[in-house]
């Protein structure tokens, strides 16, 4: 699976390569490993500012568009470095805070003539919340977790969720087994709709606010049956209107 990952200033680079910097010329040995090996399996696209994606089974691209030294290959292997997930989340959050704060300071130095509202995520409290959040789906007992950090847009996220819950793969837990067509969680046209719980504990429809604002306020996700989300307007009809819903 190849996904486009966007971080930072909205630039996206499509660079596919597997030039992981391994010491001692052992690349060939590593490349010959079993199917579960993280190296050299599938390509994942990212920009120089990518953070480690701990839960993914994809080997990351190491090329950097900024021309600086290549990102550490330690951050591109699943479960490596061996830091507990609790600590890793804290680390990722801190790094995001730092860069959000740096960006905020950099912005302050710029003279801004036009009156376009700045990205609220940086203004509000300078803290960006990243990491894994829970996803539950109505009718499925066991939930999943998704790394918001590894997604760049709503479409991206919706695709991942569709893969997680609706792949017609008997080995996948939590699947309903019935749906083979694309789900379209975002446009209100399918049987399910995607909602999230925000920092204040309210359940909101996903998609109303800019992505960056969304990821600072989302605490967890829920794939809800459209019938239960009564009154939530289909997105394409009334994008501004939203209703607060307590899950049953």
């Amino acid at each position: 699976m190849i996904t486009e990952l966007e971080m930072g200033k909205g630039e996206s680079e499509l660079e596919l390569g597997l030039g992981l910097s391994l010491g001692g010329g052992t690349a060939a040995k590593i490349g010959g490993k079993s199917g579960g090996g993280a190296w050299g399996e599938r390509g994942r696209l990212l920009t120089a500012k990518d953070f480690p994606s701990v839960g993914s089974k994809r080997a990351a691209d190491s090329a950097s568009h900024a021309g600086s030294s290549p990102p550490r290959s330690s951050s591109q292997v699943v479960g490596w470095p061996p830091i507990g997930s609790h600590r890793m989340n804290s680390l990722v959050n801190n790094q995001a805070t730092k860069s959000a704060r740096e960006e905020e300071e950099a912005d302050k130095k710029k003279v801004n003539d036009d009156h376009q509202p700045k990205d609220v995520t940086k203004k509000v409290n300078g803290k960006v919340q990243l990491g894994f959040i829970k996803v539950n789906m109505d009718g499925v007992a066991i939930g999943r977790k998704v790394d918001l950090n590894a997604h760049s847009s709503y479409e991206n996220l919706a695709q991942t969720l569709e893969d997680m819950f609706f792949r017609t793969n008997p080995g996948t837990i939590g699947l309903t087994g019935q749906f083979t067509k694309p789900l379209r969680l975002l446009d209100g046209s399918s049987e399910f709709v995607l909602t999230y719980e925000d920092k204040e504990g309210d359940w909101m429809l996903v998609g109303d606010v800019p992505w960056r604002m969304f990821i600072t306020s989302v605490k967890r996700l829920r794939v809800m049956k459209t019938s239960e989300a009564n009154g939530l307007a289909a997105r394409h009809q009334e994008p501004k209107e939203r209703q607060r819903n307590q899950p049953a």
Partner: protein
Amino acid sequence: MNYFPDEVVEHVFDFVTSHKDRNAISLVCKSWYKIERYSRQKVFIGNCYATNPERLLRRFPCLKSLTLKGKPHFADFNLVPHEWGGFVQPWIEALARSRVGLEELRLKRMVVTDESLELLSRSFVNFKSLVLVSCEGFTTDGLASIAANCRHLRDLDLQENEIDDHRGQWLSCFPDTCTTLVTLNFACLEGETNLVALERLVARSPNLKSLKLNRAVPLDALARLMSCAPQMVDLGVGSYENDPDSESYLKLQAAIKKCTSLRSLSGFLEAAPHCLSAFHPICHNLTSLNLSYAAEIHGSHLIKLIQHCKKLQRLWILDSIGDKGLEVVASTCKELQELRVFPSDLVGGGNTAVTEEGLVAISAGCPKLHSILYFCQQMTNAALVTVAKNCPNFIRFRLCILEPNKPDHVTSQPLDEGFGAIVKACKNLRRLSLSGLLTDQVFLYIGMYANQLEMLSIAFAGDTDKGMLYVLNGCKKMKKLEIRDSPFGDTALLADVSKYETMRSLWMSSCEVTLSGCKRLAEKAPWLNVEIINETDNNRMEENGHEGRQKVDKLYLYRTVVGTRMDAPPFVWIL
């Protein structure tokens, strides 16, 4: 001893507290086995699937304290799918049904639900102590049941769990009559905290010795809390951001000075570095300091704090302290026994990171050092040889060079000789984690010298099956072996099946073991649970079998007396 009445023998056994020793006692003769089992109060089960609640209760009907561990260690790094197992519910149900007088429950890497916590809180009148480490599956509602129903609660210790925070009312569930708290640790909770309820709880808990707050507790609340608990021994600071001239800060300074019993400090989950100086007056008493979550505190402030901590025995810190900072630690903390240095920056070079020089400095300055966990960017054989010479007393040595397969950065050689020196010199080494570029040679050394080694973690190391064989044949006391991304296959796996009976578990992921190899192992050893964890599709694995030459993604095997577990999810295939 056989001429003494049972009560006398039992009284003697009361002085034997370690699990190993009690297990040994029970093997001496039938009479001792019987006396031991009726008098055993604390039971430790390192793998919850090695036995079951029924057998536990049959053998130890008088048990008061139970420790259970669930998922394998690599679950900490997201290598084990969430639904794998490790449910505590059946244990609590069985214990509740049996009316055993449970007082203490300690769980690690298990799935705990609100239902389990509710049942626990209602079933044991004398329940006193709950310690949950790296567990998941519950919410603050579960904590509310514990608070409300456990009348004699002494310890509620939540370490690095994933808890769904339904926002803060669980603290108000402690009744006004609850005054017995000794330990309260909720640092891992992410949500808001009811500060009023917390302050009243602390104020009515005169025995409270250990208090670890979450990030929702601000500085002014901390000042008030410390004022009403000057007997505090172990403090975890939550949020630590404030204007240093404000009244709250002055109050905090005054409160800190009164806490003359304070020995352990941690937290600083959100910290403004310039306020650390408030703690300087009590630093000379500190034996334990954990600043590993305090990412905002720069090296210089850390160093200023540490310079006051002459009695420090345990230090957990971020690598932002740098080699220079570690030199200060080496010259100041002569009593240091345990050091952990965690990475603060995973992306980009990090010029404040630590290198082999910091490690050498510590080994030279701290003669009592016996446990180390060290994340660094680079290492050399020469440094490791020096460390081994300086510190032959290591019990735990865990080195993590961040870049996999990285050789000695000076000679470009593998790090075999360095680690070899460590295992040769450290005769009491019980736990070892390897990293960097390593060939089969390092395993030859480990098999030859690491006689006391119980736990070994291997990643991206070795060349052939010989490596793993050296370890399996040589390390007689091996209990837990975990291997990832290394070229070990069926030959090594199957060479000595009886070895696994002496071990708790073996984990192998992204190695060269095949399905047929695992099947053969399962056939030879019916007393093992051989689990294949394959998140893609186990059924497809079988179809495309080609006589099972397919490589196995994740293999986890462990000895058990109760056979295949019934609660495995579909992607776990127990052969």
